[in-house]
């Protein structure tokens, strides 16, 4: 028995307290997130007791869900559907209304062992789990799923025959940095992942949806329908099972009657997703009774809906709507100019007046539901007089022109053009003449992905996202070599701190590193956090048990209609 297993046994048997367990685990170099997994050897939390169940929930979504293949589908919108049908190996408890971050719970594993060198993760899988097609969930199924999305040529190996290049591309940002070198079946319910180097966020990242998804599909379904077509016949282990999809009209799921965990089974009889591209039509559909839950309403309709008796749920999540300043524009090379910009944007008023309280003014480049988020950390208060003074000191007292690139719409973008106009209006007050340049979403992310260096003359661009894994998210946004860093500049000290963070398995210490990076950004002002979306969900009064997600993925298992 390993030291970790001995510790687990002692804790399970009640021989040591929780505090002693956590302390001993920390000495073994096990992170709190991993401890979460270890603790998860106990049964997952059940659902809050409620009197009702049943009914049909019709959800109005902002658009068509992507393909229902958890290894290919991208975006929070698609994850709402995927995570009802499929489950990952490691998950987050998204239906605990009190949990700030969505704590890590076992998905399809009982527990995870980590070797002392932090290179070998041994996943002990749950017994008795079956896919919705009746085939068993086991170690071979896990191996099949990982090999389907892991491009082994990156580590000089040959890909499995079932490797799917589309999945390989969308999931490469997990398997590439994690340095996965092998996945081995130890026995029917044990799988071993071996990494080339310690990757502190390995378990955290596995809980992600979208490009980090480790959701497990039925290998039998993939073999039957093929990689391209299986998305039209999705089979997982989740609380809902697929019934039908009519493109452009709806996706219908129903409760999985043989769900492996009765304590967390779904309450609804049916869950229907309807894509409605127009935000105004989504709200009208709620008012006419055709749907009973709406995603992404226009901010200015929320108060009116509340006044008409429609409950509106809002909650903090990892989203950050932020702007990046270009290191390649002469005026912005001076930190005083960047600070002047930071303190001249009235974020509070934007949140209250323009966005009608559906967002909070952002204070940090950490999402509010990230573990490392520091609630006491504050961004520059609104002070245009000080901003003007700083500009004058920097020699730009007469102001200057700046180009601001922005999408017209997009995933999590709220209402980007009016928000950019608000920023432009604020900056005009200190003499900076902002010219907006708008793009349609895909054209925009193409520009954004190439980076500000390739966009000469552009001073500001914008993005709205964030990750629940603190260091992982900062790595994407701040590492000078990251493909997701639109500035692609080396901020003094940040790359080294990120590297240190990757070696730090003590969560508390790692979070301090994240906070240091946040403080450096505040000092040097390269990214400016603007608002955190509260993602309002108006719903019909007959919808009960809805728990707003603190993450990106909405879990519908607690909901019932009646």
């Amino acid at each position, binding site marked *: 028995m390993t030291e970790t297993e001995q510790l687990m046994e002692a804790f399970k048997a009640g021989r040591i307290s929780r505090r002693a367990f956590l302390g001993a685990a920390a000495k073994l170099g096990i992170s709190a997130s991993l401890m979460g997994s270890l603790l998860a050897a106990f049964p997952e939390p059940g659902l809050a007791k409620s009197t009702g169940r049943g009914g049909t929930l019709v959800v109005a979504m902002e658009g068509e869900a992507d*393909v229902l293949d958890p290894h290919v589908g991208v975006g929070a919108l698609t994850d709402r559907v995927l995570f009802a049908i499929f489950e990952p190996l490691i998950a987050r408890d998204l239906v605990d209304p009190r949990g700030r971050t969505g704590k890590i719970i076992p998905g399809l594993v009982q527990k995870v062992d980590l070797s002392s060198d932090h290179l070998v993760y041994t996943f002990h899988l749950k017994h008795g789990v079956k896919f919705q097609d009746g085939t068993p969930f086991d170690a071979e199924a896990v191996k099949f799923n990982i090999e389907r999305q892991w491009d082994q040529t990156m580590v000089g190996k040959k890909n499995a025959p079932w490797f799917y290049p589309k999945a390989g*591309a969308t999931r490469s940002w997990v398997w590439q940095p994690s340095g996965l070198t092998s996945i081995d079946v130890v026995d029917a319910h044990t799988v071993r992942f071996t990494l080339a180097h310690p990757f502190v966020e390995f378990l955290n990242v596995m809980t992600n949806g979208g490009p980090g998804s480790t959701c497990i599909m039925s290998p039998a379904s993939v073999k039957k329908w093929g990689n391209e077509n299986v*998305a*039209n016949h999705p089979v997982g282990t989740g609380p809902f099972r697929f019934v039908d999809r009519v493109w452009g009209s709806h996706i219908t799921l129903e409760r999985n009657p043989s769900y492996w965990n009765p304590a967390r089974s779904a309450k609804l009889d049916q869950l229907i997703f309807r894509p*409605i591209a*127009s935000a105004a*039509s989504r709200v009208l559909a709620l008012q006419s009774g055709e749907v009973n839950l709406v995603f992404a309403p226009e901010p200015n309709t929320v108060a009116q809906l509340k006044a008409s008796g429609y409950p509106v749920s809002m909650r903090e999540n990892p989203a950050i709507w932020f702007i990046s300043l270009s290191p390649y524009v002469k005026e912005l090379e001076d930190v005083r100019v960047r600070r002047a910009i930071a303190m001249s944007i009235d974020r509070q008023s934007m949140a209250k007046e323009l966005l009608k309280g559906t967002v909070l003014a952002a204070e940090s480049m950490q999402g509010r539901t990230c573990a490392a988020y520091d609630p006491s950390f504050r961004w520059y208060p609104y002070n245009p007089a000080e901003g003007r003074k700083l500009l004058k000191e920097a020699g730009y007292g007469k102001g200057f022109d700046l180009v601001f690139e922005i999408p017209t719409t997009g995933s999590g973008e709220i209402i980007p053009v009016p928000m950019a106009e608000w920023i432009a209006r604020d900056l005009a007050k200190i003499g900076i003449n902002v010219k907006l340049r708008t793009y349609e979403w*895909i054209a925009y*992310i193409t520009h954004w*992905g190439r980076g500000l260096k390739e966009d000469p003359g552009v001073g500001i661009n914008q993005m709205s996202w964030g990750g629940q894994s603190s260091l992982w998210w900062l790595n994407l946004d701040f590492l000078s070599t990251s493909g997701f860093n639109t500035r692609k500049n080396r901020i003094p000290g940040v790359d080294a701190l990120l590297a240190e963070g990757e070696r730090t398995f003590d969560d508390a210490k790692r979070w301090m590193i994240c906070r240091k990076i946040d403080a450096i950004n505040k000092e040097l002002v390269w990214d400016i956090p603007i608002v955190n979306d509260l993602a309002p969900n108006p719903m019909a009064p007959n919808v009960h048990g809805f728990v707003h997600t603190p993450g990106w993925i909405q879990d519908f298992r607690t909901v019932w209609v009646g």
Partner: protein
Amino acid sequence: MLAYAVKRTVTTVPIMLGVSVLVFLLMQLIPGNAAVAMLGPAAGNPHALAQMERYLGLNRPIAVQYLIWLGHLVHGNLGQSTEYSQPVAGILAQRVHNSLILLAASLLLSIVFGVLIGVVSASRPGSVFDRIAMSACLVLASAPTFWLGLLLLWFFAVHLRVFPEMGMYTLGQHGFFDLIRHLVLPALATAAIPIAVIGRLVRSSMLEVLSQPYVLALRTRGLSTLRVHMHAFRNVLVPTVNIVALQAGFVFGSALYTEVVFNWPGVGLLIYNALLARDLAVVQATVLVISLVFVVFNLAADLVRVAIDPRER
């Protein structure tokens, strides 16, 4: 007549080919491709982007991509949708069917109301009806379709609750009357502009014809007003057929707004989503179908014109 029809049909082939080249080139001009659309911000990972582009064949020269697409088309294969992971033909067939239903209903409303308004207004120029009808036509022709659609939705679906708010059918139902209930509002919204255009054109054509000497001759021979108008209307049919054909193409291609507002799963909504997803195969096929509808309706209009106007024979 047959020779004329065959000749016109043959001339559509180069038109369609030209349209396909144009669309293909236009799609190359706009930034971003299907790989970026599928990866989202993850396209910032160069390895992922390269892998996806390779898989989708987007790393090949543009000319090669086009020829491959054309080769498939010749064999009746419209390609595979990158967004839907399905053959384009299957997706498009369903959407075209849905759009044709909307088109037929809108055209029916446009022709009936447009012609009626035009003829009645022309028969009493300057009357109260004429003034109200022409003012209404001006408003309808100027009203943005999505705005009108939302207004109709709010009043009839939310306020009065007499018509459903979206889609083609109530979930779980596929009855004819259910379809008709869902069709009324989008068909009205789509028909608004064509009604106004046809109404104004028929009115002005009728007025022009009614001032011709032969109409005066008919009147002096003691024919009733109805008979005179029936004679006059035959001469208005030619420009009416032409404008109806043009409006049919317009309605089919521009039903996007209606389809987005009413969530009608037709080609408008399909091409909107395909453009956002840079789903080249779907965009190509949809534009071809829209062009085909334009060409077919204009061909039909030419044939009808020849049939009803002896001078054209």
